[in-house]
């Protein structure tokens, strides 16, 4: 039995320790906002936050998160109010939407650590998140918009 906090709620789950967090969230807890894209840590679709840091849930054994706090897209804000979510709508970023949970989770983590990112900061930070639909130009623009509204910690 592994105990952790998921989107602010104490959560217990029965899983083999090496099962990746991704499948625990998706299949055992039935929360499907976090997506599978590669299972190798190379596409970013499964990005979630662990104690505020972005991690790839597909490459994180569930044992690692014992006692930690995990945030998924479903918990990023109440009702899409995070500056990143707002900016995503303002720029009409998504196409198919599949990669976007991971994109927003990475972008939120970027802005939490750097609230005035340059183009190359964004490129460096976001290059681990693939989008096959090609929404990169809008993601970049939306991150810049969101940056104006992120509180400095």
């Amino acid at each position, binding site marked *: 039995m592994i105990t952790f906090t998921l989107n602010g709620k104490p959560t217990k789950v029965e899983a*083999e320790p090496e*099962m*990746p967090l991704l*499948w625990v969230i*998706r*299949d*055992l807890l*039935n*929360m*499907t*906002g*976090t*997506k*599978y*894209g*590669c*299972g*190798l840590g*190379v*596409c970013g*679709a499964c990005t979630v936050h662990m104690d505020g840091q972005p991690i790839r849930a597909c490459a994180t054994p569930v044992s690692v998160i014992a006692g930690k706090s995990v945030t*998924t*897209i*479903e918990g*990023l804000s109440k*009702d*899409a109010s995070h500056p990143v*979510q707002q900016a*995503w*709508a303002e720029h*009409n970023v*998504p*196409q*198919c*939407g*599949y*990669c*976007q*949970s991971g994109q*927003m989770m990475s972008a939120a983590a970027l802005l939490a650590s750097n609230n005035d990112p340059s183009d190359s900061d*964004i*490129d*460096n930070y*976001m*290059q*681990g*998140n*693939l*989008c*096959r*639909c*090609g*929404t*990169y*130009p*809008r*993601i*970049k623009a939306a991150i810049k918009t969101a940056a104006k509204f992120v509180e400095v910690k």
Partner: protein
Amino acid sequence: MFIEQLQHHDSVMHNISRRGFLKTLGIAGSGLVLGVTLPSFSPAYAAESGNGEMNLFVSIDESGEVNIICHRSEMGQGIRTSLPQVLADELQADWERVNVVQGLANASYGSQNTDGSRSVRHFYQTMREMGASARTMLEQAAAEKWGVPVEEVKAIDHKVVHQSGKSLGFGELAAAASKLTPPDVASLVFKNKQDFKYIGKGLTIVDMHDIQTGKTQFGQDVHMEGMLYASIVRAPVVGANVLSFDKDAALKTPGVADVVAMPERSFPVGFNSLPGVAVLASNTWSAQQAAKKLSIEWTQHENQSHDSGAFLATLQERVKSKGKVQRSVGDAYAELDKAENTVQASYSVPYLAHATMEPPAATAVFKDGQMEIWACTQTPQSTQNTVAQVLGLEPSQVKVNVTLLGGGFGRKSKPDFSVEAAILAKHSGKPVKVVWSRENDIQHGYYHAISAQHYQAGLNDKGQVSSWIQRSAFPSIGWTFSGNTNEPQSWELSLGFGDVPFQLPHLSCESHEATAHARIGWIRSVCNIQHAFALGSFVDEVAVAADKSTPQMWLELIGEDANIDPGQQGFEFSNYGETLERFPLDTKRLKHCLNEVIAKSGADKPTAANEAWGVSVHRSFVSYVAVAAKVKVDNNKVTVLEMHSAIDAGTVVNPDRVKSQQEGSMIFGLSIALLGEISFKEGKVQQSNYHDYQVLRMNQCPEIYTHIIDSDAVPGGVGEPGTPPVAAAVANAIYHASGKRIRDLPVKNHMQV
């Protein structure tokens, strides 16, 4: 597929308010409901059959909520927004009160195949008719209630207003309108362009909130009580079957419920499931872990000798000699002999995979003789029909629910993954979700065919082209469905080859045989990929030889303003299933795009050292796109700095979605140009995931600018036409920046990207 054609005129409106099928869609049944029958299909929409059959429709209930059916699949192109927004505009509805309901698989919709860039092209008019019909009925209902002539009332903003100022909401009129006979389509009055409120506006996509909050349901996200998750190991060589496997090791893995051999298969492969072994487990992870323990032995098949490198070399040799003539005028060979100067070059594009971010996934339940499927499919009807056929059911016993698609690009037009889910659901008696891993997706695709092209041109002493010969060879998609097609089909050559838009006195377009050794499928813009790359590159090479600018060479080759009919030169031109009367091959529009992209990008202006522009232009899916790309080359490293496109797609419904489709399709084209390559050794795909089948990442993505050409012409395709011209534009830019000519894609095999 692409060739099928749908007539989209003479639709007939039906008031179906009192029919019983609405509950199948979860829509309250009172109020006005309007359906349409498309003339090429049975007008018996058979509401009473209890089958849940329905046509495209709109309903307005007594609270004023408007439900609009979207019968096409959403895969990022924004169709769940664009089609309803057309209807809502004609209806004079308030967009805030419009719900979009996803249509089930149903033949009475006509084709639901969401590919070929044609959803708006085919249904723009129908949506307008339906909106205008409902509006007219609401106006008539109001006039009757008030006892005034209908000329005195007008629908506006979700209500009908009388000239005296009194008004009734759509909801208050819905019941009365439901008792009226729909107007004759020919009598409908449509809104003027300047009165459009939603058409031509960049409305936010209807799924935005769900995407923002992670609530979307894709094929991979379907969940059901008691569901089993399936992971399948499929034959690595197309044609091989399972010889033996170790069931016990897999069964011992915790969470595993069953291990099932998938049915054996032979050719044609079609849309059928592949042979292999499936593991059913209580979660995806357990199924995938157990699948690694199967130790499967496969039967031998001659395809295991397929080596894509050696195969390409054969094709490249073959296209150097004369092939089967597909289109010809004059005597290109005699003219070539007389030419002052000749240019020739060969080009190639490797196999490509779709690599949609969401790998294919389907869930099926078989209960009481009924199969129900939830899948991220572009083709619900072929899913329904193929599943029925493979499992020996009637199509009416198969219900297909379309989830959102995490990208499609043609992969999800093939229902093989739904067939797998159906087979396993029937076998196990439980709901089964077949989850394709990324490795499955990369190694068991329907690949874009490997190809070789050869071009030759003769120039006179003024540097004018006097003779033009072009040849193409690639395995045909036809093989996938016949098992024996061994040469390009005319509908494939209609994609940017036989329709080369040149008015030359001496021209020969030829094709060569090529055998298939893998499942060949269509991928975003299909054969336009290789044809536009070769053509756009060769025009640039000829321009260099003639010491002219590339745009100048294009304009000379294209010639006068004219509508070209390649059929007059013997070519069987399919024109994307459209007539040339409705969608001509119009050289004026082509040239205009080219001029426009140069004017807007400044591609004719000088650049810094090591930097240069490249341009290309291409008509596909009856739209016209020109691309200008600027690159920098430093120490053999290529950086693409900016890409511009000018698109003429006729009337544009949602400019923001057209713009986003241009961005997406150009980035897709850039992935192909720089990175895309699937290779085969011993009949097996060598790549397995995004680390070795790379797609463009943000740090490689240039600035992208889209220039939409204002047009009142009939809507053309959007979604694919942005892809074809990119590779040539980029390769040409690389040449002009560095002197290095890339003739064999991808660029990464020659330079750092």
